[in-house]
């Protein structure tokens, strides 16, 4: 345990020194996963940043864009669009051959020990390019056997590919399912290409839906974990996604990830050009909340580009261009399995410590009635990984938002913001953007914050808090909740009214070429 963890543990233990042991809802032991999860499943997901919210603080993923072709058209996708400044699915700056992709994976894995997962998500559909996709998996699994393989698909070709997916030990598959009703589907998919024919309208949506659900059933029958992605399109499938949630749960999907529609007019998509809006943060959260009772919801998705590299909140792909990868001699790449295992052990310790600290706080806090009855609040956090509040307010490219009450600090989403502090001093415009992006939060926790932005935030009823700098996120939030409730009770803090107009800016930040980002010290 680090000394700062020890100090923190001591600090929170003092008022409740006798608090220890396990609560009923959490688990003890280093392999501790959620109490209601099959240990075999937990082993598959615990180090996967896309499948485990906790893992996404520590582990990185990489997408290799070997699959440019697609067999369907979606109204939220424009295949011509490729902008190096944006970060969203389907968009990819460089195309890779399977051989180059495997080399890139080795080069990145040697540089970034946190990288545990390689996925193929496009730029088209992984299974519309089966030879390229499976050749890539074959090369990677030979060279880097500890890396988990996953793929993402629209599901049209899925039933024909389940055997090959199982053969290559791909144990995570994401299927994008936006509807289970062709009447809804025909508003989302103008056409599909199936059985040597282009299908349109309701027929197209019916075939697609049947193939998606059949593929899902076939995968779960093989015990392959399936995450279902759904794009929330207000007025088209927003209410319907509750039915989708029910149907995919019934067929054994492990996780449901409802994502906001990205539809800027400049992307040139059908929706973008026709003024179809995306959901607000509140609408998205409300839908996710109403599906929560049914199954696990993923809320930490950053809607990565098809060639994203790094922790979920960032994208280091600009550091690993084809040109740079081609120049690397494969014999020079040191694939250090021992160092990678050492990193995983270190993370295991941190996660275990955080779990213990959290249990102590909750069992200590839970004895106060006022606290138990207080409604949850939203708090934003600036972090650059490691599960700590360890980023300067002005350096944050996104904030993580948690819903906090007496018993739980639950991650509910991230808010991407433009870099507030680019040249070392703040800009008023970007500060306004941040206060808008965090308008539903009562506080923002950071490693450090300047006096000016702190004052502006306070005017927007968001407290800038830096006293938990470099502490673990969840324990700090739970500790602060107590202070907040006491502050409201004594009149020192006025509870804020939330407008429900919080905007969503999607995607992971893309670092400009040549500007390396330190993930963890």
């Amino acid at each position, binding site marked *: 345990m680090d000394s700062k963890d020890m100090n923190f543990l001591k600090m929170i233990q003092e008022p409740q020194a006798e608090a220890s042991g396990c609560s009923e809802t959490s688990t003890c032991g280093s392999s501790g996963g959620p109490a209601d999860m099959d240990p075999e499943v937990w082993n598959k997901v615990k180090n996967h940043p896309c499948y485990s919210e906790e893992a996404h603080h520590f582990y990185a993923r990489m997408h290799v864009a070997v699959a440019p072709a697609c*067999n369907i058209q979606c109204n939220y996708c424009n295949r011509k669009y490729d902008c190096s400044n944006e970060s969203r699915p389907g968009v990819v700056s460089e195309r890779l051959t399977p051989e180059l992709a495997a080399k890139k994976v080795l080069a990145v894995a040697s540089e970034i020990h946190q990288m545990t997962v390689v996925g193929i998500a496009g730029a088209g559909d992984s299974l519309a390019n089966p030879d390229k996709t499976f050749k890539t998996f074959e090369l990677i699994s030979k060279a880097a056997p500890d890396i988990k393989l996953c793929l993402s698909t629209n599901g049209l070709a899925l039933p024909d590919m389940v055997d090959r997916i199982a053969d290559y030990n791909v144990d995570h598959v994401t299927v994008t399912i936006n509807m289970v009703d062709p009447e809804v589907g025909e508003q989302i998919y103008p056409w599909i290409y199936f059985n040597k*024919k282009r299908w349109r309208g309701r027929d197209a949506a019916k075939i697609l839906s049947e193939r998606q659900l059949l593929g899902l059933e076939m995968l779960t029958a093989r015990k392959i974990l399936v995450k279902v992605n759904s794009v929330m399109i207000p007025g088209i499938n927003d209410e319907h996604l509750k039915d989708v949630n029910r149907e995919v749960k019934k067929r054994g999907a492990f996780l449901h990830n409802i994502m906001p529609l990205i539809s800027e007019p400049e992307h040139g998509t059908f929706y973008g050009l026709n003024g179809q809006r995306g959901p607000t943060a509140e609408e998205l959260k409300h839908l996710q909340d109403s599906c929560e009772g049914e199954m696990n919801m993923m809320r930490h998705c950053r809607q990565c580009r098809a060639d994203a590299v790094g922790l979920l909140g960032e994208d280091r792909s600009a550091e690993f261009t084809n040109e740079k990868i081609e120049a690397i001699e494969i014999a020079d790449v040191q694939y250090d399995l021992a160092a990678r295992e050492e990193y995983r052990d270190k993370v295991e310790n941190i996660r275990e410590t955080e779990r213990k600290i959290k249990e102590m706080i909750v069992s200590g806090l839970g004895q106060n009635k006022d606290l138990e009855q207080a409604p949850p609040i939203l708090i934003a956090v600036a972090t650059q990984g490691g599960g700590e509040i360890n980023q300067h307010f002005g350096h944050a490219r996104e904030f993580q938002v948690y819903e906090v009450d007496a018993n739980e600090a639950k991650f509910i989403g991230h808010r991407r913001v433009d870099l507030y502090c680019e040249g070392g001093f703040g800009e008023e415009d970007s500060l306004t953007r941040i206060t808008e992006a965090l308008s539903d939060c009562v506080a923002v926790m950071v490693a450090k914050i300047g006096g000016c932005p702190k004052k502006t935030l306070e005017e927007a009823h968001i407290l800038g808090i830096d006293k938990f700098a470099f502490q673990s996120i969840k324990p700090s939030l739970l500790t602060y909740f107590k202070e907040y409730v006491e502050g409201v009770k004594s009149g020192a803090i006025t509870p804020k009214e939330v407008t429900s107009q919080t905007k969503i800016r999607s995607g992971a930040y893309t670092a400009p070429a040549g500007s390396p980002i330190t993930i963890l010290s």
Partner: protein
Amino acid sequence: MAYTIVLENCTGCSICELACPNSAIMSNDDGLYQIDPDLCTECVGHFDEAQCNAVCPIELTCIPDPAIVEDREMLMARKIKLHGS
């Protein structure tokens, strides 16, 4: 008519290459795709519609080449020449 690809529209996604029954489509030096008219049968004898056009994500990109007009008989004869039956 053989089909042709309008290069200004082509995104180089390669799906037409995968769909073509005659291996008539290949990428050029820019990573975009072109159709060899000597190998194009417009999918006559294979499928009801030209596969490159059926699968292309961009409208008006895989189109009949107005410069190379061929009737169904000629296309069928080419199909038999290429595939034996």
